[in-house]
């Protein structure tokens, strides 16, 4: 593939990079044409009609030419209209994130980039992504404004402190690409560099597994569970202090008696907790709606163990 | 090349680079109108900020707005409108060569301006007392919602800048008052007073926008 880039543009490594380059080169050649036209005409006139001798002469009265004037108003207008539409369409493609994209949370902070994966993995300045899969970036800043810029992917988006911004890309080839901060952010602005490491799907899964593994390795199950309670957003529905939110509180849950919507009862034990995490709709506690999603594919075996251990530890 | 000489009648108020008093007056008036345009744009930035923050959090503005005293705001509105009337009367009098009456009206305008500032002083000191100050100095706790200090940032910025314009206007009125007493302004030449009048009406107009936006819209 075109890994060398062209004289003007860096290698085109995302699915949309070629579209951006096509417009770039369209404008480039149109500009070149008009530039050569202007310079050639000017040069020709200047040389052809240069003043000879000291004698002062009258020059012809050429004050306007309706045809020419309409021509050089309409032609640029039409060309610019084409470029506008083309540019806007490309912009929509660059900014509208595909639905099936892999979500990565990007956080800019003086002077490094932090990436959070849905699996709970965090990585600094090193974004590992699978090749051939759209990657959606949800971005915000911890301090001043930064800008996420990957030249090879032709994407750039400011990263703001008070709201989220979004960008996306789909890498075409395995490789390592520069990530730069493009909005001035202080002393180390030019060192706020990262890498986007595009790897094969297998390598990506392996990397993720290792990262997830190392995430909880050596950590007591209870502590890992506590960490997951936050990182998996359990807290949005289950409190630790007995407060009723969308779901029952975890406080003193273990060992208590649960009453379900169908009227049946059961003591809360390890197997019930496990079932409720992996298949929440099987038994719904009376007084609550069946709104919890399944965590079947989102949690590893050890993580389920950890959450169960954590809930067990929360005595009444 | 023809020569046009207009040096025959050259009154002392006519500056040398103008050919006649009419040209001078037109130039001064046009200049004043352009200056007023810049003033409108200066406040325009703040009005934009008001609109943007209001649209972000309308409830906050509704809650915070209750803290302002409508009677005091209304009193100030009446005071300023009256001062615009006395200003207009002062110009009318100087056009009719009634210098003394003109001066009296100017003094009345000054007095109204002072009343405005005194009322403003009481409003401000009450707010300072309650801790309803902009930004980091905000300590009041009686308003619901996030960041109520934003409302007071906008309030103090807008009324503060307006207050500065009232002060500046008083200076300008004082200046034309002095010129009137010195009999430098008369039916032939009253451009400075006319321009100060235009400026004063603008200050009045801006308040007429500020009053409903800050005090009334709930």
């Amino acid at each position, binding site marked *: 593939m075109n890994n060398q*880039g062209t004289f003007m543009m860096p290698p085109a490594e995302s699915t949309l990079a070629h579209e*951006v380059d096509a417009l*770039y080169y369209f*404008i480039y050649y149109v500009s070149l044409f008009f530039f050569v036209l*202007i310079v050639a005409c000017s040069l020709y006139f*200047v040389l052809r009609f240069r*003043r000879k001798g000291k004698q*002062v*002469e*009258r*020059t*012809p009265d*050429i*004050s306007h030419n309706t045809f020419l004037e309409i021509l*050089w*108003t309409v032609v*640029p*207008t039409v060309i*610019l209209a084409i*470029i*506008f539409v083309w*540019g*806007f369409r490309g*912009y929509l493609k*660059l900014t509208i994130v595909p639905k099936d994209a892999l979500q990565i949370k990007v956080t800019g902070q003086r002077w490094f980039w932090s990436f959070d994966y849905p699996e709970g993995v965090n990585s600094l300045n090193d974004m590992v992504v699978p090749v051939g899969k759209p990657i959606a970036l949800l971005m915000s800043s911890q*301090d*001043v404004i930064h800008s996420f810029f990957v*030249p090879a992917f032709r994407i*750039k988006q400011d990263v*703001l*402190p*008070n709201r989220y911004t979004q960008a996306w890309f789909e890498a075409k080839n395995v490789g390592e690409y*520069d990530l730069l901060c*493009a*909005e*001035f952010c202080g*002393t*180390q*602005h*030019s*060192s706020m560099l990262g890498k986007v490491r595009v790897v094969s799907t297998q390598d990506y899964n392996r990397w993720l597994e290792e990262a997830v593994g190392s995430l909880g390795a050596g950590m007591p199950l209870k502590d890992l569970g506590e960490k997951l309670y936050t990182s998996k957003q359990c807290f949005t529905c289950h409190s630790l202090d007995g407060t009723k939110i969308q779901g029952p509180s975890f406080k003193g849950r273990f060992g208590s008696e649960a009453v379900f919507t169908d009227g049946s009862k059961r003591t809360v034990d390890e197997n019930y907790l496990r079932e409720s995490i992996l298949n929440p709709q099987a038994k719904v506690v009376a007084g609550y709606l069946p709104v919890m999603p399944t965590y079947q594919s989102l949690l590893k075996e050890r993580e389920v163990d950890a959450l169960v251990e954590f809930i067990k530890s929360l005595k009444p | 090349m023809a020569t*046009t000489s207009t040096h025959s009648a050259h009154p002392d108020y006519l*500056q040398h*680079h103008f050919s006649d008093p009419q040209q001078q007056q*037109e*130039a001064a008036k046009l*200049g004043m109108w*352009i200056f007023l*345009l*810049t003033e409108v*744009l*200066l406040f325009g*930035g703040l009005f934009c*900020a008001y609109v943007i923050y209001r649209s972000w959090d309308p409830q906050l503005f509704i809650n915070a707005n209750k803290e302002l005293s409508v009677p005091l705001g209304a009193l100030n509105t009446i005071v300023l409108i009256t001062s615009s009337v006395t200003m207009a009367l002062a110009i009318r009098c100087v056009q009719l060569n009634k210098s003394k009456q003109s001066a009296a009206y100017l003094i009345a305008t000054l007095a109204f301006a002072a009343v405005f500032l005194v009322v403003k002083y009481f409003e401000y000191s009450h707010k300072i007392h309650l801790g309803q100050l902009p*930004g*980091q100095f905000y300590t009041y706790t009686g308003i619901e919602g996030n*960041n109520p*200090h*934003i409302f007071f940032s906008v309030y103090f*910025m807008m009324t503060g800048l307006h207050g500065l314009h009232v002060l500046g206007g008083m200076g300008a009125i004082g200046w034309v008052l002095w010129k009137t007493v010195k009999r430098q302004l008369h039916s032939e030449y009253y451009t400075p007073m006319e321009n100060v009048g235009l400026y004063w009406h603008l200050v009045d107009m801006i308040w007429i926008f500020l009053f409903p936006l800050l005090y009334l819209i709930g």
Partner: protein
Amino acid sequence: MYDKALPQPNYLSEPKGLKSWLLTTDHKRIGLMYFAAIMGAFILGGIFAMLIRIELISPSKVMMGADAYNQVFTLHGAIMIFLFIIPSIPAALGNLILPLMLGAKDVAFPRLNLCSWYIYVFGALFAVYSMFANAVDTGWTFYTPYSSETGTAVISMALAVFILGFSSIFTGLNFIVTIHKLRAPGLTWYKLPLFVWAIYATGILQVMATPVIGITMVLLVLERVAGIGIFDPAMGGDPVLFQHFFWFYSHPAVYIMILPGMGIISELITAFSRKKIFGYKAIAYSSLAIAFISFLVWGHHMFVSGQSRFAAMIFSFLTFFVAVPSAIKVFNWMATLYKGSISFATPMLYALSFLFLFAIGGLTGVFLGALAVDVHLHDTYFVVAHFHYVMMGGTVVALLGGIHYWWPKVFGRMYSEVWGKVCAALVFIGFNVTFLPQFVMGSQGMPRRYYTYPEQYQAMHLFSTIGSWILGVGFLIMTIYLLHSVFKGRIVGKNPWGALTLEWETTSPPSPHNFEATPEVTHGPYDYDKIVVEPT
């Protein structure tokens, strides 16, 4: 055919004494004082530019640390924009020439004019203070929240911008009124030189845009002093609102910079081709069109700032719309050359340089207006190169052309034509060597405001730095021969170029009151088809 001595009395010699200069209300003296002040600012900004280029000769540290570098590029930008280029053509050449072109004795408000110069100096002192007191390091754009947090002297620079704004407003106001009310008898709107139209359009921009930057800077200062939180995300404020405010001024400001330059080019091309301007009304009205549309395109600086797609679309569309009047002007100038009687005097060399450089500057703007391409090019060296082609290749080159054109009128003496041509060539070559490589490295992804950079860009940075030295040499020689000519230059007559606008009908240098008698205008500014004037 020339006199042996300068005509007396002239505005330079009478009245005498320092006080007579400091308290003058003569537009020509105020223009000269402005000229001296902005040239001081240009030298200062130029020194900072050279320091930037030297530091960037290698990817790692050359002579200063990262913080010093950030301060240097900020000062370069802030000084060049606010102290040099915005007042340059209107306040210096406009003051010197505009009333002469109108056949007026002075501007409408001479005391306000002097006042604006003192305000400029006062504002400049704040900027200089900021230079020495832990210089500001935010970039000339002062983006929040960085500018509300950084420990450097942002307040004094923001106040400088606020104060300088008044100077700019007063100049614009003065010129608008002067053009409306003080034209010589017979000088109808369509007989005005195009420089006057350009200054008129610029005046509208100065008057309408500058108050907004004023209030923005006040808010920024209050943000730092009192923590009002309008732009502070931690307090519920919005940092992007600052960008909207800032560009609402700073985009029209770009046209405050370029429109007067375009005006000069219309004068130079006609005078040195001895040819009626092609499409007078098209050029005049395109200046006004540019002025009005320029208020509606500020969002094109913010395509990746997180504004809505709809806003981006509108701003992109209007941006292309503003490109059309500029294109029309270029074609008109080109057509004016046709069947002219073209001389290659120094000012004309600058005018031709302008056509070349402004064409590049304008065409590269089309890349940046196209949304999809701008996402890649935004905040890279491509943008840096683009605005230098417009601001320096356009405005500064036009200013140099204007200086060389009106120099004999202002001082009554001529500079060395040979050195003039040599320097015009040096500036042209040096400029292109400096900034052409920046288009390439910007496209390749080199972000702006980078103290260190990936090694693949070094070759182009090296080119760029060498170009800056050529430019430096050019400006150095220019300073020498121009200063020399003030004292030793050949004395010229009223009209050394044989041009037809009014300023050439009075003596060089003009008398304190400009004209012996108020001139009456009977012909258009470019009636070279009817009138032949021998150069004197």
